[in-house]
């Protein structure tokens, strides 16, 4: 078990949560984008996490040290698009309206995004706390025998 493994685990989670925040910010920023590069309205993006598998280095280490219990935290597996239907709003004056006068707005729900944002920020805090606790444990080690 490496000295900074636990910190790396928490750091991976901080990174993952920050990516999630980025995507949420992107969703909110594009809540009213009716025309993207493909010509379609903006589609809401969702971050999917997965448990991070060990790298080659970790596995080599494990063989050298005969211990096979390393954890590597979490990572962003994919950023997928929400396939739920677009919101249809009647607005004939809008340049992107169809022949019936309806505009396809992105499938972003601001309230959902805000809730997800709070969740991401709380998860971030939890991981910062975990990291601080690891830090206090490491400083405690240096005090052994004092």
């Amino acid at each position, binding site marked *: 078990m490496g000295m900074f493994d636990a910190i790396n685990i928490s750091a991976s989670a901080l990174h993952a*949560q920050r990516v999630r925040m980025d995507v949420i910010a992107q969703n909110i920023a594009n809540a009213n984008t009716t025309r993207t590069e493909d010509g379609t309205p903006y589609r809401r993006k969702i971050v999917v*996490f997965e448990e991070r598998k060990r790298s080659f280095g970790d596995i080599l280490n494990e063989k050298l040290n005969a211990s*096979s219990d390393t*954890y590597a*935290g979490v990572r962003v597996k994919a950023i997928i698009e929400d396939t739920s239907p677009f919101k249809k709003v009647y607005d004939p004056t809008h340049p992107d309206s169809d022949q019936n006068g309806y505009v396809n707005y992105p499938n972003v729900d601001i309230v959902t995004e805000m809730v997800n944002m709070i969740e991401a920020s709380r998860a971030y805090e*939890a991981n910062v706390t975990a990291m601080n606790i*690891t830090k206090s*444990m490491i400083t*405690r080690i240096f005090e052994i025998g004092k």
Partner: protein
Amino acid sequence: MINMFDKIDFYKKALDYAWKRNEVISNNIANADTPGYKAKDLNFKAFLQAYLNDQNNLELITTDKRHIKAEQSSGTSTKDRAIEILDSSFQMRLDGNTVDIEQEMGKLLQNSLYFDGVSLQLSREINKWKTVIKEGR
């Protein structure tokens, strides 16, 4: 004769356990939003048992490949088996994740206090021996 390092070794094991457990709990917290992740914990009894097993791991020396080897756990560390998946399927979320963040934070705090306590004991033990070595001066 008593071994002066017996107690220190024992504290070392306890610290090792707390250290590893911190890692396992941190991993749970990191994966609090990972679909399908199952919360894990470290079993103290199994961990210590694994340590004892590793210690008594006496291997039979064979001089010929036809000699019968003693039953051995193949390569993998027995410490692995101390990590257990918590049976908390009753509070599983829709995405199959079983991490209860409050519980994990509580465990994390408990574990760090336990770690502090053991390391304090270890310091005292070392200081005791220091006193003995310096003849009480």
